[in-house]
């Protein structure tokens, strides 16, 4: 649109009176609000801040925190390595190495050998969760994420699965739909191989 377009509606700022030009009424108004909060916090439980970490913040249910990789009822990782999350990710912080699933996994032909998220690169937009066709990746309400090095903040499959174990009680899987189990699976074969190849840093870029 050009600046001389007739469809443009030109607006002029309102004229201020002499009193308004001194800004005093606005400053006093602000001080009244501050004073009200001081009185409320001193007399009752009207404080809007909290004493973290003694008091823990409860984020809203749709808060997007640290990722977790969901497990199915047999303890296997639900991810089928379709890499749609890595495709949807706007910052390319997800790196997946897919592999053919073991013969005994009759319900799928592919699984993730390695699944790495760079939690520092991630912008917590939730697109991965949206893209996942099997509800394997979810964002939890964990927000107090810290680490001593950058490497520590690159979460591999083991770590992401452990986030699931940590949070599954408080936050059940959003879909709730678990793929139907076949009867002919033996117990010892269902343990998830958690160690994948070491992902080099440059592969994430």
């Amino acid at each position, binding site marked *: 649109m050009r600046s001389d377009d007739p469809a443009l509606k030109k607006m002029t700022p309102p004229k201020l009176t002499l009193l308004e030009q001194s800004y005093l009424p606005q400053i006093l108004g602000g001080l009244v609000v501050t004073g009200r909060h001081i009185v409320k916090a001193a007399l009752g439980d009207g404080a809007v801040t909290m004493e973290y970490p003694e008091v823990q913040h409860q984020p809203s249910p749709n808060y997007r925190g640290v990722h977790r990789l969901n497990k199915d009822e047999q303890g296997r990782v639900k991810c089928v390595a*379709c890499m749609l999350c890595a*495709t949807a990710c706007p910052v390319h912080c997800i790196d997946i190495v897919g592999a*053919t699933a073991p013969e005994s996994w009759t319900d799928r032909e*592919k699984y993730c050998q390695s699944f790495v998220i760079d939690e520092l690169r991630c912008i917590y937009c939730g697109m991965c969760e949206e893209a996942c066709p099997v509800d394997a990746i979810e964002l939890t309400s964990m927000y107090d994420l810290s680490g001593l090095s950058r490497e520590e903040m690159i979460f591999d499959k083991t770590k992401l699965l452990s986030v699931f174990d940590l949070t599954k009680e408080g936050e059940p899987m959003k879909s709730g739909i678990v793929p139907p189990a076949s009867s002919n699976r033996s117990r010892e074969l269902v343990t998830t191989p958690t160690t994948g190849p070491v992902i080099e840093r440059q592969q994430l870029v």
Partner: protein
Amino acid sequence: MATIIIDGQSFELPEGAKFNAIQAAKHFGIDIPYYCWHPALSVVANCRMCEIEVGTKDPATGEIKMLPRLVPGCQTPARDGTVLVTESAKVLEHRKNIMELLLINHPLDCPVCDQAGECGLQDYSYEHGRAAHRFVEERNVKPKKEVSDLIVLNQDRCIMCTRCVRFTREIPGTAELHVMRRGDHGEIAIFPDQPVDNPLAGNVVDLCPVGALLDKDFLHNQRVWFLSKHDGVCTGCSTGCNISVEENAGKVWRHKPRHNPYVNDYWICDEGRYGYKAANSPTLLGGNYVLEGKDHHGVPTDRFVKRLNETLTTRILDKQSVLGILSPYLSVEEAFAAAQWLASLTNRVELALGPVPVRGEDLTFAPDKTKGRSGDTSFIVPRPFTISAEKAPNRAGVEMMLDHFGKGAVPFEKALESVASHPIVIVFGGSPDESWIEADQVAALRKAEVLVLFDTTINPLADVADFVAGIASFAEKSGTYVNRDRRLQRFEAALPPREGVWPLLDLIAIVSGDGKAPIRSQEILKAAARVVPGLAKVEDGLVPELGLNLDSKDQPIPDAGFQDDWTLANVSTV
């Protein structure tokens, strides 16, 4: 002039073209969807996807008579006065119905299917299909089976287009695949203990429009939309098949054929297909090395160049002569730059051709237009496909340089005999195979006082050479090759040069002080075309997409460049 009317518009058919309706429409930019038809295979018209309204225009009265029913476009010849209607309500409704029928038993497993992203079913169901599935009965799920060591058949995804069956019957003529049973029970099958075993077997994977036939080598490795495609030329033999080199995250993941009717038609052999592995080989040289005592020490390029130049200059001032060996794996530009550099060092220089690997005999598949084919063959232009015995891509191009700068193509064996009279030997290698040189040949070359090697792999010669420079591998360089039919073909680099290594063109520019890296191969080709008579045709350094015949003029091919729509996608999200 033949005129064809498509959707109310008149088009002039190109001279000498024998098109069917799909080809004709595509030629003028109108898409008719199809699955079972392929330009190199006979027409069976069994997928019914290309059915359109067809009629004829009476040349005398101008009256148009349409056939009452829809007709397969693949079987309809495009002649003077043919009328095609591709977008009527009737046709669109029909496509919708066909898509629904094709998808009845098809699983919804696109997320784990390797074909996703280059799948005919995905593309057409998005374009022509229904959003919802109305079929409520239980799907007919056939098990997965293996048709060879390298190819897996996911029968549940198959739409029975029979492209693969026709391919094995009509192109290699081995006919390993067939259709077993009929109707809903129909399946693609091999005979017991007779897997798909022919040198072109991998092409059935490319032909499959859906994810039924998949390459086990690529299976579950990558999603195709992550891959960046680069136009390359296969270095496996002197045929010089046009390939697409597909890479992601610093690795080449696969080779796919590119259509070139003058060279390889639609196919590549399995050796070329799996030749990509050499680009990711752990035995590639990772830098420059100088022999000190008995060990090689890695040195940075600047120090390497300084020491090499010092050694060469002192010896050349002592009037020592140079033997240069140019491998047939060098590109035209590399061979030119190398020969030019050697010639500029001294006038006492002899040039020779590196070893040209030859294995077996030329293997030609020459499909007949009608013999061995089953369906309608009237639209086929049969083209032979040859796998050369000569396993190097550019003997012809390197020989051209040897003719110009030296005394013709001196064979490697003869060059070995003359090592005694040349104290300095400079070898330009480039073979992806580490065993390109025999132990006795290494010993013969080692008799030289100074042995310099520019090569890509850690090989027996690199173990003994005084100076070893790693150079870019076939996937890391761009340039041109001249194939067995003297066709000059351009290829582009798929990967950046690996850490610590320069492309040969840049390294020669640094060593000779002639220019500043990076060097564009096109500039070198231009310079070569000015002085080498054989290359006079490329004086602008531009090579056409389908290559350039250096000797004669190409016959124009009207259907050149045709490729299935769904294989063309080059969507890279990274």
